[in-house]
């Protein structure tokens, strides 16, 4: 054991590019993950200069907190399972459904809608649709005694909001499965169902695990949706932590509550490593033969898949149509006269928020993309001491509820020597370290499918690790890079839970304005802002896809072109 350790140290030391990359990543993680976390732990466990477990114990024994803990797990599991299933449905349809290009683009666009808008916009549409006077429950079905609040509406909203993450994770993996494999199984006499079960599904396992992990963590950390939809009968931990801090000014209690949240997040993460880590899923070997058109899915099954996808897409489009209408009428539900006024408001009074948000997203996007690919590559492909620790630490800000990350940043970066609060950098850093894990996971999943022999060939031809990474690995993982890039940009435009604490007089964000507008009875500007965000994100994402298509990454050709829905 000691020998292999020192051997890997020596290997790292002999490769300056690798050493530099590892050192750089650790410095960043130290500054933007561990340093704020240390401040948070200090808040939770140090009282009057001494260590204390009292707040933790009193929090654990509180029955309402126990209920919230259980509720959080139930909700996260439901969203993880439902979202992964829905994501798989969309990915399978996109890759194997035999849809024409334009239909595929339309489906992609609908699937991406929830991802590109602030999370609580779905919640608002659900309240309008399913309440006692909801358009669906009351006007359409004639029900009068229905509640729009509780477990099911929260699970529905979160599933619709987060399933595109599963779709984005699963689609390149399904696309990368060589149809020849299925074809071979077919010619060996396997039935379609058997092939699906024994070839296609197992090859998608790393994708499933990743998708479930990402959705589980996203739901566990989401406070905005439950805040609006869960009502009072279904309290969850992130909302409780948020209320504890913002309502009762109880940083200690809030910090403790969110630390409790870390347990399930870490457990799922370790489980996923254990389950996926040991198997081999190589399908890209550099030795790809003629691609054959797949027959793995029966024509009738294709029809069912496509119909199911378009049904879900129709629900999503309906939710967002409501939003668009709200942005164009004088007062939603009271005065349905047409007006551009709300757009006028957001481009005059709301202009600083728009400008600040765009600047921050534009800077965070490339940083997050590179960081995600770099860390993902180091974790999946490099052997160095502390690799697992790096993987774990890189996930922390993603797994923690945003409220806590925000508060931790605010506390840690308010005072010299690192007085970043009030500036743009603190918001950018928050986004990069909180939302790059999607890019990291995508990179890892992509690399798990690519045979190491390709990189080894490069090394044995004399290329250093930097050159191999740049000229061999990077093109292979381009889809993951752009997924990471896209997610950081999208989240920079839409996330709120952490950054609501980081906005300042000088730098404010559209999402914070939206939430404020909603509480200020200004539904019109809130809806107009949301529509603006959706349009901007769509344009940027379409641009990314176009760039990716022009790159013509060797393995990713077909995958790449429509990967981000363009």
């Amino acid at each position: 054991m000691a020998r292999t350790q020192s051997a890997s140290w020596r290997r790292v030391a002999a490769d300056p590019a690798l050493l530099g990359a590892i050192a750089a990543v650790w410095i960043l993680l130290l500054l933007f993950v561990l340093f704020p976390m240390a401040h948070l732990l200090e808040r939770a466990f140090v009282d009057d200069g001494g260590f204390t477990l009292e707040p933790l114990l009193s929090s654990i024994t509180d029955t309402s907190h126990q209920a919230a803990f259980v509720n959080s797990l139930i909700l996260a599991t439901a969203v993880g399972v439902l979202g992964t299933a829905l994501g798989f449905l969309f990915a399978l349809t996109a890759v194997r459904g035999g849809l024409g290009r334009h239909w595929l683009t339309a489906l992609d666009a609908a699937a991406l809608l929830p991802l590109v808008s602030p999370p609580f916009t779905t919640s608002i549409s659900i309240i309008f649709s399913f309440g006692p006077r909801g358009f669906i429950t009351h006007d359409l079905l004639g029900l009068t005694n229905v509640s729009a609040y509780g477990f099911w509406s929260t699970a529905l909203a979160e599933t619709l909001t987060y399933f595109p993450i599963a779709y984005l994770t699963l689609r390149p993996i399904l696309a990368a499965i060589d149809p020849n494999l299925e074809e071979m199984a077919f010619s060996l006499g396997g039935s379609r169902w058997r092939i699906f079960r024994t070839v296609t599904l197992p090859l998608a396992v790393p994708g499933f695990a990743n998708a479930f992990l990402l959705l589980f963590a996203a739901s566990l950390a989401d406070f905005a949706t439950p805040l609006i939809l869960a009502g009072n009968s279904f309290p969850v931990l992130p909302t409780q932590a948020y209320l504890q801090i913002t309502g009762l000014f109880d940083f200690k209690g809030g910090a403790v509550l969110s630390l409790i949240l870390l347990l399930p997040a870490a457990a799922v993460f370790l489980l996923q490593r254990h389950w996926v880590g040991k198997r081999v899923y190589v399908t890209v070997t550099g030795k790809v033969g003629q691609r054959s058109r797949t027959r793995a899915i029966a024509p009738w099954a294709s029809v069912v898949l496509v119909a199911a996808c378009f049904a879900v897409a129709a629900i999503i489009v309906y939710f967002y149509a409501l939003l668009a209408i709200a942005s164009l009428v004088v007062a939603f539900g009271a005065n349905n006269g047409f007006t551009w006024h709300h757009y006028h408001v957001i481009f005059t009074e709301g202009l600083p928020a728009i400008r600040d948000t765009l600047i921050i997203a534009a800077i965070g996007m490339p940083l997050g993309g590179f960081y995600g690919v770099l860390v993902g590559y180091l974790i999946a492909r490099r052997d160095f001491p502390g690799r697992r620790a790096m993987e774990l630490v890189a996930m922390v800000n993603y797994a923690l509820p945003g409220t806590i990350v925000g508060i931790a940043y605010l506390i840690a970066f308010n005072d010299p020597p690192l007085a970043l609060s009030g500036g743009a950098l603190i918001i950018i850093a928050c986004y990069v370290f909180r939302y790059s894990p999607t890019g990291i996971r995508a990179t890892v999943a992509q690399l798990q499918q690519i045979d190491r022999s390709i990189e080894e060939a490069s090394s044995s031809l004399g290329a250093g690790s930097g050159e191999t990474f740049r000229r061999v690995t990077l093109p292979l993982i381009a889809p993951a890079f752009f997924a990471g890039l896209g997610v950081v940009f999208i989240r920079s435009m839409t996330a709120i839970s952490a950054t609501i604490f980081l906005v300042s007089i000088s730098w404010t964000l559209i999402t914070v304005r939206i939430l404020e507008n909603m509480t200020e009875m200004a539904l019109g500007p809130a809806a107009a802002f949301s529509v603006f965000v959706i349009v901007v994100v769509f344009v940027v994402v379409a641009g990314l896809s176009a760039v990716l298509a022009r790159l013509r990454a060797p393995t990713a050709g077909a995958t790449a072109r429509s990967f981000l829905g363009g």
Partner: protein
Amino acid sequence: MRLLRPALLALAGWLAGIAVAHAADPLNVYTIWPENYARPMFQEFEKQTAIKVNFLRFSSGEALARVIAEKNNPRIDVLFGGPVETFAAGIKEGIFEAYKSPSFAKLPARFKQVDGQWTAIADDPLVFMTNAAFLKTNNLQPPASWGDLLNPAYKNSLQMADARTSGTAVTRIFSVLEVYERNEDKAFDYLKKLRQNVQVYTKSGGGGTLPVGLGQAGGGIFFIVDALETKAKGYDVVISFPKEGIGSSAEAIALIKGAKNPESAKKLIDFATSAAMQSKFSEYKVNFVPASPDVKTDPALAEVLKGAKIFPIDDEYAGANRKRIIERWVKEVLPAQ
């Protein structure tokens, strides 16, 4: 890549320019009043003093949490608007600097903190607000007593604010305490019964106004300023008052300890606590009741308030018991279904 570098450099230059521009800003304020109430007031201030105000809006809990977190390196000069109980909590955290504006002496005792830690800029009574169509379909009169809200016809139909985040909710609970002459057990008995008719407790005080306006909820208890705003938007809602009386909360302003622009900040406090600002309420249809004795209440607002029994919330009693009462509310009322 070759194209990217000059583009990035240009972007960096632009950002640096913006950063400098931002740094030159004069007066920084967190407002708890919604932007559409606060913005015209700040514009008037800029007109009169040529001091530019940069502001950001937060609900009271968030604003307070931020000011506390920024204590060692304050980012703002003034905390503007919001119920006094928020300011009372702030005093305990030592985040304010005492300052007495020229109007200070004129104000009645309930509109100022003795040492000048905060000063009131407006008064904001609570009201019952119900959806007109809901009343009609259920054959109800607008609620005229606290007991009316316990009518089973309202089952699962009321929306009001959550006491953990909202000053509106705290004022509401202390109103009930006053109605029951501070007999806590009786008051909580009522609150638990009221719980049966509550559909959801919202994060912010005004959170339920839109659902009530749309008929998603039948009614609720809100600050008058939010209720009249709902009505002004065109939603068919009815405003009524309980005959037993309902509480009113003073809205305050305070100077932040360690403010970077104390002189400008004091000018804003002078402006806000005097007729200079409060006489503008009626012009901009901001339906707060002025705190300054020099300013008359807007006639339309006075008409709504006519005959209503309104009592002030005793901020000393509220401040001393706030935390305990909220905790009891969370433990006993919230789960009582």
